[in-house]
């Protein structure tokens, strides 16, 4: 009985968990963390079972309320969803584990109940986006997760976080409006909201202005959500002023689900035939992505605050995924989807390390971290591995994904973008090497000697997620065939006709 309903349970369980957390926190505050942890653990197991089922028997379809698809809401899981769902829940699990000790300093005690409630709501929203096969349902879950993210960003003690969250709220709402208008136009033109049904009904309408308008609204809306350059302005503040556990969560889970939604709408709803033949949008994507890679890295080089540097580096990393989408051949798409995994793993690790430095020493700026590797060796090593992956050194997963994207660019004859990928790696090396040099090869400043000498690796509940992610950077690179087994069928499905 239960195996048939896993698709819906992955969304229902965090919702129920969120409200149980709220009630339990009312009885005793320390019940919140275990409930949240158990909820996400169950979900992670479910996502693994779903992926296994999808790989074995093909896409799973689930009709809510037993209404048949074009009328009712349908949840569909194909290899792409299954893969993204596993990545998202893996990261959520580690972020939740990390948050327990990390938020003690950063969040007022009475807000902890609310923190875990909203945390689970965000995960419910994100999972909803990942499993749904209905366009309007996607919008609803996008709003749930975004509203939860605004609240989480503002939850810390940092005063600037409130302004950052407000900024994020305004930009997020604009993007949600755009997406909603896009959905509305599609509904006017076709009378359906089901993605598969839309893909079937759209081809005869490709020439119509209303569909093209809808398409542009979707692109702009989702570009804001994924912080694609030059619409990334909300991102640096939101990532750098949020509590560290939240930075790690939204930098991985929220941004990756935005990319997933973009891929899903571009390739499943509008189909490659439309985006490649009808509107020359892919070329545009490539160029914007190229600018994002370079400008994001250059801006990261100019930062002095570690979390802020990582935030700008997120803008540049996002460029790689968009570049892969823009090139849109099978090698590049493989690289792009693998990049969802690799960026989640390495950015999660880096933000957690930045949070660990703040936890142990209170230092936020890069210059203060001189000589920190002597007292926090494991954290420093994790940082080194994750940056190596971000630069794209073999055998890390970052190298594999960049390799595939570069391969795709070469196959389609766009050698210029290969140069961009290499230049981006070089710039990444510049800004991350600066941090590594300070950590390993400099002596601490006089003023900070006591703090650096007194620092320790963070407690186990923070250290384990950091080390798991750091080793994942290497393991996913060496055993890259395992994720590729899932990614290849999903790429074939996405590129379908072409």
């Amino acid at each position: 009985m239960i195996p048939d309903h896993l698709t819906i349970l992955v969304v229902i369980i965090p919702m129920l968990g969120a409200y149980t957390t709220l009630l339990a926190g009312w009885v005793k505050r320390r019940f919140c963390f275990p409930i949240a942890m158990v909820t996400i653990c169950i979900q992670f197991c479910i996502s693994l079972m779903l992926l296994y089922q999808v790989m074995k028997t093909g896409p799973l379809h689930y009709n809510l309320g037993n209404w048949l698809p074009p009328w009712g809401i349908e949840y569909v899981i194909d290899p792409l969803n299954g893969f993204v769902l596993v990545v998202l829940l893996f990261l959520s699990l580690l972020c939740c584990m990390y948050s327990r000790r990390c938020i003690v300093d950063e969040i007022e005690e009475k807000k902890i109940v609310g923190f875990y409630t909203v945390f689970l709501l965000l995960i419910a929203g994100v999972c909803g986006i990942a499993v749904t096969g209905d366009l309007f349902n996607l919008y609803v879950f996008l709003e749930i997760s975004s509203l939860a993210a605004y609240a989480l960003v503002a939850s810390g003690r940092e005063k600037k976080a409130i302004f950052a969250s407000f900024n994020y709220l305004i930009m997020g709402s604009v993007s949600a409006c755009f997406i909603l208008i896009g959905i509305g136009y599609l509904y006017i033109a076709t009378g359906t909201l089901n993605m598969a049904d839309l893909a079937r009904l759209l081809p005869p309408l490709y020439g119509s202005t209303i569909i093209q308008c809808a398409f542009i609204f979707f692109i702009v809306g989702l570009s804001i959500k994924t912080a694609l350059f030059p619409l990334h302005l909300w991102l640096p503040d939101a990532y750098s002023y949020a509590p560290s556990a939240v930075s790690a969560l939204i930098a991985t889970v929220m941004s990756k689900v935005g990319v997933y939604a973009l891929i899903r709408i571009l390739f499943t709803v509008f189909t490659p035939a439309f985006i490649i033949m009808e509107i020359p949008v892919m070329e545009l994507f490539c160029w914007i992505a190229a600018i994002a890679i370079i400008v994001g890295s250059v801006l990261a080089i100019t930062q002095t605050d570690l979390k802020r540097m990582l935030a700008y580096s997120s803008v540049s990393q996002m460029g790689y995924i968009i570049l892969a989408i823009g090139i849109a051949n099978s090698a590049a798409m493989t690289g792009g989807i693998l990049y969802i995994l690799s960026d989640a793993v390495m950015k999660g690790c880096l933000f957690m390390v930045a949070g660990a430095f703040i936890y142990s020493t209170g230092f936020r700026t890069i210059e203060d971290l001189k000589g920190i590797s002597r007292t926090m060796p494991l954290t420093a090593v994790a940082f080194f591995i994750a940056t190596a992956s971000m630069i794209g050194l073999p055998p890390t997963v970052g190298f594999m994904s960049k390799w595939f994207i570069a391969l795709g660019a070469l196959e389609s004859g766009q050698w210029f973008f290969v140069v961009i990928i290499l230049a981006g790696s070089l710039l990444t090396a510049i800004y991350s090497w600066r941090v590594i040099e300070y950590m390993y090869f400099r002596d601490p400043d006089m003023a900070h000697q006591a703090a650096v000498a007194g620092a320790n690796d963070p407690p186990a509940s923070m250290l384990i997620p950091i080390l798991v992610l750091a080793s994942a950077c290497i393991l996913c690179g060496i055993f890259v065939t395992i994720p590729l087994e899932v990614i290849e069928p999903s790429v074939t499905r996405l590129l379908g006709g072409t």
Partner: protein
Amino acid sequence: MKQDVVIRTVCRLIVPFIQIFALYVIIHGASGAGGGFQGGVIFASSFILIGIAFGLSDARQRISEKANTLLSCTGLYLYAGIGVLCIVFGGNFLGYSFIPLPLDSAATRGLMAEIVEIGIGITVMAVMTSIFYDIAVKEDM
């Protein structure tokens, strides 16, 4: 303003009607115009009216912050509970007609949809009131 007899009397008169109308809107959600959300908002407006006319402490006595938390969770449990109940009886999530009641399929669907609407109504009422409390408290400081 608290001393104003006209406002307080009118408020006292109108609140029961607002609440009855809210219940009407919630109950007719599945079969007619209205629904859980609209009804919940109307119900919350009666508490907001009490808060405006009699002061916040008076409204808090009638429905406290804790009661709001409890009610908002109850409503959601009601919703999700019906959904899970359908799974237990072998349907899909929210597949109302699978719940074995001695009624025909359409009537079961209608009844279950009403319960879900009531759940939505309770949650919306509690959350709207609690938002009003939060905004009003900030004003005091």
